[in-house]
């Protein structure tokens, strides 16, 4: 019965705390992962924009070799996995690096979606992350600017809003490492919180409830075997009135027994006297 009492007190607390801590950690991890990924995309977007700006003067001069050199030089970076510039028709014009076939396929899907989409939607950059291979890719349109449409050597009409597309795939190794580190730390922290919460609740319950009840149970067992109130082990005062009332009952029983004995003794003497007579 007592084991059940302990189980009934601790099991719900354990389930509720464990479940909610795990749930909270999973959701928190999901939030942080989304925030870090968004931050990584923002950085990648800024990098992509920087590359597009750096090729601008070469594009204005229609210096194809310079553009190819810039793209190739950027492609020598270890964390760059793909770099490509596409024309208005979506065909590859310049390619610096293409390490992963899957990245190339994703980039082409992005370009196809740019070409298929409405004019307003082309302004939105496309991005994707592949956690399995540790890559993220970002594609954005290259817009026509007054300098392009009024250039002497390389003429684009005013109404051509998009002059081409740019795709860059970079390694998400650092992001994945950070996420793994965060996950491991969260697991360790959760386990510590769980042990402290469940252990703390168990210790408090044991100290303030289970042990006093255990002592009272032991006293009740002793009293039922005839031990007098004065001989019962001293109890603490954690159970308050219950403990006092129990000892009072045992004391009353002891007094009643004494009174009964006192009544029985004269009767016995009377009986003995009558027998002798």
């Amino acid at each position, binding site marked *: 019965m007592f084991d059940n009492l302990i189980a*009934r007190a601790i*099991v*719900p607390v354990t*389930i*509720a705390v*464990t*479940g*909610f801590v*795990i*749930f*909270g950690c*999973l*959701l928190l991890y*999901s*939030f942080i*992962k*989304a925030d870090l990924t968004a931050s990584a995309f923002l950085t990648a977007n800024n990098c992509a924009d920087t590359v597009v700006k750096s090729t601008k003067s070469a594009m204005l001069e229609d210096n194809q070799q310079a553009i190819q050199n810039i793209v190739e030089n950027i492609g020598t970076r270890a964390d760059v996995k793909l770099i490509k510039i596409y024309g208005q028709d979506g065909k590859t014009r310049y390619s610096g690096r293409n390490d992963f076939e899957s990245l190339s396929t994703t980039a082409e899907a992005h370009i196809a979606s740019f070409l298929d989409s409405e004019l307003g939607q082309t302004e939105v950059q496309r991005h994707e992350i592949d956690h399995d291979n540790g890559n993220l890719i970002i594609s954005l349109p290259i817009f026509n600017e007054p300098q392009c449409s009024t250039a002497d050597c390389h003429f684009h009409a005013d109404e051509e809003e998009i002059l081409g597309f740019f795709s860059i795939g970079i390694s998400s190794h650092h992001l994945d490492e950070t996420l793994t580190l965060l996950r491991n730390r969260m697991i360790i922290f959760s386990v510590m919180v769980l042990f402290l919460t469940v252990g703390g609740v168990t210790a408090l319950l044991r100290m303030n409830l289970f042990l006093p009840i255990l002592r009272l149970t032991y006293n009740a067992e002793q009293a039922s075997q005839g031990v007098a109130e004065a001989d019962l082990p001293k109890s603490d005062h954690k159970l308050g009135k219950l403990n006092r009332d129990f000892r009072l009952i045992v004391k009353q029983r002891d007094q009643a027994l004494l009174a009964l004995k006192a009544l029985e003794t004269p009767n016995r003497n009377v009986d003995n006297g009558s027998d002798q007579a």
Partner: protein
Amino acid sequence: MDPIKHETEDPLPDINPLREQVKTKIKKLELLSSTGLWILALFTMLSMGAFRNFDFLPPLSDSLRAALGTGPPVKYINGALVVYGFSAIILILTQMASDKKPRGALGHFGYLGAFYLFYHFSAGLAENFWAIFAVGLTILGLHSYHVWNYYHERIQEQTEILHELDKLMD
């Protein structure tokens, strides 16, 4: 007429129907005590479907999807899930503390299913699957424990009555 003789000749009422009633009640309570586990099993099956992103179901037609509109942003669903999870756990713990008859397991199953669907339509199921699964297991596990505990106590009461009746029979 001898009153003592008259008393001993009086036949005892037949308590067999009462015993049968108690036995039937115990069986019914035993069945009820496992309902929490059934709901938990149902939720696990639903979660297996959600893990596969409900790919075994036919895709929604464009017209129906247009009628439903776009799903709510994932961050709103996350917020709702936190509020729901916290409230549901508090509610079940309160039910347990006041020794009330356990209710609402199907409701919780419905809510959790709705969360899976909302995440599915908002394209956030893959990221948040384990969060819903963990909170679902916690809520339904706690509820299941409450159901088992509650009916177990009722079974014990009925078993004691049955023992008393058996003593009377003897």
